[in-house]
């Protein structure tokens, strides 16, 4: 009875060892490029990026390439950091909202990650190496997102950070579906507030008020209140999903009422109207999606005024901004969106920052991703030319020192 078990164990051990040996080829890689854009200081021409065990070891024209290193000679190509999508809404399966409640501060969208999601594989091909998956927009207090690598082995290897922020929704989306149950059962949970933006604000204000009251009274907080309390006390940033100027102003009103100090505005279509205020309050902004035309979205009962130079005007005022996909179930071609923003008036270097270092800083992972330098994660793109030129091709995507996509060989994250 014992012997076969031992034999199976032995076999398993051998297989594991064999796999480990195979993985060793990832160990030391040298990427030779025509130009390396590090996002920290000026681009370096004719440089080599030396990668060891998934991290960048050295960058420079004179980086010594050890004999045993696998050399990727990218010729005249441009190497830049992998793109960071600060507000993605893909890579999950099923409902990204817990619809049974409008206030779900304990909701971790991490529980819906689907590593097999086709959208995630497409994101890799579009150069996105790190993304923050945001909770959905159906609830007033939506919960917390999760930061993941787009191509990594296993769930634990994929997740960079689960949680660490609270996201709320100031648009009108939480009202959708809520009504008096004409045809549903009378105890339907959709028979609830909010059905208007007044209702949304009331719920938010009540949630913050209840939490503040509980904090002042010193009563023990349950998990729900604790999640709100962390944002209320400034321990975690509060991401606010909104579009119109009036929503931005309302957000500031509530923020002032409750002393909310760490805001991040998401989508922020009409941000340009209040650019100076946002800048003065030192609030970062995550823009996107970047293809909507004015007043054409049927769900948007109020509509919103699109200004193609939203990004440029915000940047000019001094706002730190990121460009993100923020599109349900779909990744975005962030480099193209950055190029469109640049065409509309955002300086080119700001446009590149908006898809790399800025989102990394805003979501708090700049120590690992968003720029290239010794000790940083080896997440990089090999491009055929200038990143913002529309004809530039993404040739290779390297995540954690592994080639996750190679346009020239046809290999993809699927393997």
């Amino acid at each position, binding site marked *: 009875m014992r*012997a*076969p078990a031992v034999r199976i*164990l032995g*076999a*398993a051990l051998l297989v594991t060892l064999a796999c480990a040996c195979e993985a060793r080829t990832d160990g030391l890689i040298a990427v030779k490029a025509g130009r390396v854009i590090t996002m920290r200081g000026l681009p370096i021409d004719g440089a080599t990026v030396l990668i060891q065990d998934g991290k960048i070891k050295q960058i420079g024209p004179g980086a010594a390439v050890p004999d045993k290193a696998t050399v990727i000679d990218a010729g005249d190509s441009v190497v830049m950091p992998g793109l960071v999508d600060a507000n993605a809404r893909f890579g999950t399966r099923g409902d990204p909202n817990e619809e*049974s409640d409008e206030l779900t501060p304990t909701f971790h969208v991490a529980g819906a990650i689907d590593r*097999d999601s086709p959208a995630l594989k497409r994101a890799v091909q579009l150069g996105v190496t790190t993304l923050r998956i945001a909770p959905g927009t159906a609830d007033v207090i939506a919960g917390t997102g999760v930061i993941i690598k787009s191509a990594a*082995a296993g769930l634990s290897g994929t997740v960079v950070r689960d949680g660490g922020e609270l996201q709320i929704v100031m648009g009108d989306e939480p009202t959708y579906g809520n009504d008096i149950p004409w045809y549903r059962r009378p105890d339907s949970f959709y028979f609830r507030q909010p059905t208007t933006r007044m209702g949304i604000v009331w719920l938010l204000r009540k949630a913050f008020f209840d939490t503040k009251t509980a904090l002042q009274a010193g009563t023990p907080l349950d998990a729900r209140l604790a999640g709100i309390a962390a944002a209320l006390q400034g321990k975690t940033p509060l991401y606010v999903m909104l579009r119109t100027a009036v929503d931005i102003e309302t957000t500031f009103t509530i923020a002032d009422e409750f002393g909310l100090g760490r805001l991040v505005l998401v989508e922020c279509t009409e941000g340009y109207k209040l650019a100076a205020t946002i800048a003065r309050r030192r609030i970062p902004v995550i823009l996107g999606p970047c293809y909507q035309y004015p007043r054409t979205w049927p769900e948007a009962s109020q509509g919103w005024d699109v200004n193609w130079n939203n990004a440029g005007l915000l940047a000019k005022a001094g706002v730190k901004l990121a460009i993100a996909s923020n599109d349900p179930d779909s990744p975005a071609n962030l480099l193209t969106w950055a190029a469109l923003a640049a065409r509309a008036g955002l300086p080119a270097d700001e446009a590149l920052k908006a898809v790399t270092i800025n989102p990394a800083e805003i979501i708090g992972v700049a120590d690992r991703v968003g720029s290239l330098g010794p000790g940083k994660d080896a997440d990089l793109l090999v491009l055929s030319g200038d990143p913002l030129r529309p004809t530039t091709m993404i040739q290779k995507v390297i995540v954690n020192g592994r080639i996750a996509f190679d346009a020239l060989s046809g290999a993809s994250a699927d393997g």
Partner: protein
Amino acid sequence: MKAPAVRALACVTTALFGAVTPAHAQNLLVKGGRVWTETGEALEKADVLVADGKIAAIGADLTAPDGTRVLDAAGKWVLPGFIDARSHLGLARGELDETVTPLATDTEVLDALWAEREEVRRATPSGVTSLLLSPGDANPIAGPCAVVKLGHHTILKRDATLNIVLSASALIYDRRPTSMPGLLDMVRQALSGARDKPVGDGALVKVVRGEMPVTMTCDGISDVERAVQLAAEFHARASIVTREALDELVDVLPGTGVSAICPPLGATPAERFLRAPGRLAAKGVKLAFSSMAPTTDECDLRTSAALAAAAGLPHDAALRALTCDAAGILGVGDRVGSLQTGKDADLVIVAGDPLDIAAPIECVIIDGDIAYQREGT
């Protein structure tokens, strides 16, 4: 509050309809067969003596007391009865889930069973002698599953495992939870409640004490990974049931101690699914087969095992998955799953190699009584 006493009684082998297990007609001697044991050894020309529903002796040239019925198994294989690790056999259609209570820890799957259904009677010739009856997949905690026996329809183990569902099938419109994170939240809170403030000895308490294994139904590989995390978090003995990610289990399960319950492979003919059991076994993952019957209308576990064996699962591993490994996963290895003196006399006699699906099953013995005998033998 009579329930615990009733349940305790039920844990002893009892007939489902309150009738006492019938007295065993007579003792049996299965003579001269190729007796397969779970160590992988086959005892050639060995006898199995069955008395009072148990295996009394195994060996060569056994002498039997007078009145013992002799079954000639010369040239045939004698194995433990097969164990179906997940089935809905005989359960009321469309009534497998009490969906108003998403955490259905107290509903009793046996209350949905009508053991006299035609499909139950038809299942005996398949060689399956014990099966795990599971509620459906529409509740995050779908409820306790029971291991029952065919033949006299006795309950082998009530509350054998707890079925936890990390699958979209447990997310229903206008009912909490609607999302996988919401589902995980509910299940986690229920389990941590049972761990931190245990009340009584309900299913959840048994799970966190390690007394009751969990079978976890999953869709994609990410669900499987979350299920493995959850099992580790609460030190639960777990097995995974998945159709979609069967081929990817090999990336996740090895080294975790979590077992795999294969869906009927006849219904998932893609080569990558057929190869999965072999790859899992090679990495030391314990396996069982399941019929999911009657959902797939496929009671024949042996076909699944044969298909897996044809695609690389070693012969002995396939037979173990049908018998002792399944018993281990379901926590009933002390009673069934192997041919050892003192264990329940659940035997299958096959005309040839059990994994040769052309070899007919000659005889099925459950609790020492002949439950099926092929015509003309």
